[in-house]
């Protein structure tokens, strides 16, 4: 790389980028209200993480503090970087499939779903309807599991230790279903390119229906502990606010975007798998604060149950595996396919050079992009809000760092 950026870009006919950049810097500057600037304060730099109880893994946040007030943050990420995209280039399409489970390891099914669908599109094939239904059921179960884990850890960050155990108790039931279906609990590798590897086991439908009946009162139980709890409401309402315009600007997706009032869900906007066959609502919030994100996720859990109940009664008969070549050599070309993962838009951009190995696999991780909005959300808040906001963005470091 040449050192002199100016000389390298001299030939570029860029309109007026300099002024644009100034606009950006201006926009990025902290809210410059007079009463919020501390000129005479001794600033304190607090290094939060990578070993910290509530950075959800190995996130490191450098906080610039004035007393307890956050003046700015900087996220240092990459401690869990495993080079997933480079690995993909050195594996065949099939061999890479299990790797995607290791990104968002609490929602491995969604990762696999996105990858399999992307490769299927590139191969120009489609999974049979039965497989699509199984995929939807498992993906929604996984969304529930992911939201439950989020709720438990988020409540733990805010100091309520008990919901963690309740959510883990109920998440266990989902993992049992996964285990019975494919033998794995966390990194399931449940789907294959072209459909599903496994037929549903005997009593799968009954298990799922039983689980739906079991879990509805449990979700209400979490709500009795938190929703109207005075301390919970005080800790979450008005904390980490991000407006709809800002959320879109930051590329934030998933429940965080919906809590800001943008009614956008890829399952509705660009239906994939069998989602167009089901009725469900997109819960949205109004204020874009931590409390709304909590309410939105709770409502999403109920919607997931609705989808599961519709799907499980209507699984069509038929094969579970489409016509897939033994040696997968997609034609030269590229594809971007994204799904609504529990944390937001999970996209795969795959470039094929016609060989058995992908030429390039780019994962568009929702956590990574959402985490970028952390600075915007916590500026001017207190240290305690930082952990609340990190929790509410719902990051998984395996996905942030890949």
């Amino acid at each position, binding site marked *: 790389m040449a050192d002199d950026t100016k000389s390298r870009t001299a030939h570029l006919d860029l309109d007026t980028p300099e002024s644009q950049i100034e606009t950006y810097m201006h926009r990025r500057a902290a809210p410059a209200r007079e009463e919020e600037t501390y000129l005479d304060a001794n600033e304190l730099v607090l290094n939060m993480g990578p070993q910290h109880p509530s950075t959800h893994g190995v996130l490191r946040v450098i906080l610039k503090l004035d007393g*307890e007030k956050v003046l700015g943050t900087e996220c240092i990420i990459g401690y869990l970087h495993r080079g997933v995209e480079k690995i993909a280039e050195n594996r065949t399409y099939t061999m890479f499939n299990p790797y995607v489970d290791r990104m968002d390891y609490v929602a491995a099914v969604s990762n696999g779903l996105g990858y399999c669908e992307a490769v299927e599109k590139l191969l120009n094939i489609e999974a049979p309807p039965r497989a699509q239904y199984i995929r939807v059921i498992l993906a929604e179960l996984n969304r529930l599991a992911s939201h439950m884990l989020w709720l438990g850890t988020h409540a733990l960050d805010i*100091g*309520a*230790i*008990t919901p963690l155990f309740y959510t883990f108790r109920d998440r266990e039931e989902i993992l049992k279903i996964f285990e019975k279906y494919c033998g794995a609990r966390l990194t399931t590798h449940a789907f294959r390119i072209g459909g599903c590897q496994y037929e549903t086991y005997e009593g799968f439908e009954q298990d799922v229906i039983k689980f739906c009946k079991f879990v509805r009162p449990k979700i209400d139980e979490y709500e009795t502990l938190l929703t109207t709890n005075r301390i919970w409401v005080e800790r979450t309402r008005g904390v980490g606010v991000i407006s709809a315009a800002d959320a879109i600007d930051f590329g934030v997706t998933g429940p965080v975007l919906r809590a800001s009032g943008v009614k956008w869900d890829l399952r509705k906007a660009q239906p994939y798998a069998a989602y167009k066959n089901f009725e469900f609502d997109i819960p949205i919030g109004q204020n874009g604060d931590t409390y709304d994100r909590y309410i939105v996720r709770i409502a999403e859990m109920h919607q997931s149950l609705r989808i599961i109940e519709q799907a499980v009664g209507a699984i069509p008969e038929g094969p579970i595996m489409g016509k897939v070549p033994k040696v997968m050599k997609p034609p030269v070309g590229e594809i971007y396919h994204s799904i609504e993962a529990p944390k937001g838009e999970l996209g795969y951009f795959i470039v094929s050079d016609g060989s058995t190995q992908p030429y390039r696999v780019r994962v568009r991780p929702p956590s990574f992009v959402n985490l970028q909005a952390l600075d915007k959300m916590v500026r001017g808040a207190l240290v*305690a809000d*930082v952990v609340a906001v990190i929790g509410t963005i719902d990051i998984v470091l395996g996905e942030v760092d890949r």
Partner: protein
Amino acid sequence: MQQFLNYLNSTQTPGETGNFAWATIYILIIFGGISVAVIAMNWLERKVLAHMQVRLGPMRVGPHGLLQPIADALKLLIKEDIMPAEADRLMFWMAPVIVVITAFTVFIVIPFGPTHAVTDMNIGVLFMLGVSSLGVLGIIMAGWASNSHYPLLGALRSSSQMVSYEIAMGMAVISAILMTTLTADGAGTLSMIQIVQAQDKQQMWFLFRMFPFGFLAFFIFAIAMVAETNRAPFDLPEAESELVAGFHTEYSGFRWSLFFLAEYAAMLAVSSIAVTLWMGGWMRPFSHWLAGDTWDAFFSFFPAATFFLLFVVALAGTVRMPKHAAFKIQKAGLGAFALVLGGIGVLLLIPPVKDRIQDIYWFVAKVSVFMYAYIWYRGTFPRYRFDQLMKLGWKVMIPVGIAVLIVVAAAPAFNFVW
């Protein structure tokens, strides 16, 4: 020797009579008793919290984890004692000592019975307030001496929190003291023993006196004491998810265990104060409503009955233990423990012991209600944020405390007392 034993029939505390031998014995008993209570609390908190959270808690060390606190204490003692290289060594060393000393010193004035206190100071309440607020000094020293950011923030939080809630606590305490003037002779007192005796004379706990103002004062104290002891939902100074461990982040091993000991001792101390000021101290429930020898005899069986109940529970646990060779030792241990409990129950039926244990039993029973509430809070509430805690303290607790104080002070002047 006879003179030494004669003290048992004395009507005064050893501190007042200058009986140093007995004062020392009392101090040792209290120190030992608190330590045992802390160990028991440690086990109870884990078990109760675990059952609230649909899990079992300690089950491995001893039957139902009964020996877990002892194992933990041993572990802490043999753990490497780490002092950060940049720490202020003297202050780092002194901080836990100060915290422990202040937490235990409060017990000097706490009356477990009419004569069961180390001493009866005529400024008992002032002494209590003064000493317990010294504890924050140790916490600030710990935070400062660690020379690290998390402890510093924890110490700052702790100091501002304690200062704020000390005021609300003081308001509540003063209103209780004012209530002592409502006795027939109209003499108020700051002595802890005489405060209880005032409740006895007025035939009513101060909790129900001038309802709801007595209750309000108690309520303020009950909240302030949770904040004062840095427990959930006011555990900001050691907020695990924010400040890692707050002021004792850099402490380990025995020093850390001193902080732990002090925290639980302080919890017991403030609960004891609340019991003394509002809940009639050593008085048994309904001591005037259900008076008479029959009722006295009935209530005198409570200590023994409690231990028999525990004996039955432990026995049931022994019987329900899995029938497997691996559980043999555990089963024997729990059975032995049940027998010990039963033995204590029998001991409490022997007349001289039975009579003398009454006061202490009721006092401890009331304190344990508070201790259970502490665990309950911890299992239920999320944590307050710093500014919200301050807001609650300054904008709600202190104004309400002052209002209660004004009413309690002014009403008797108009001969309007209920």
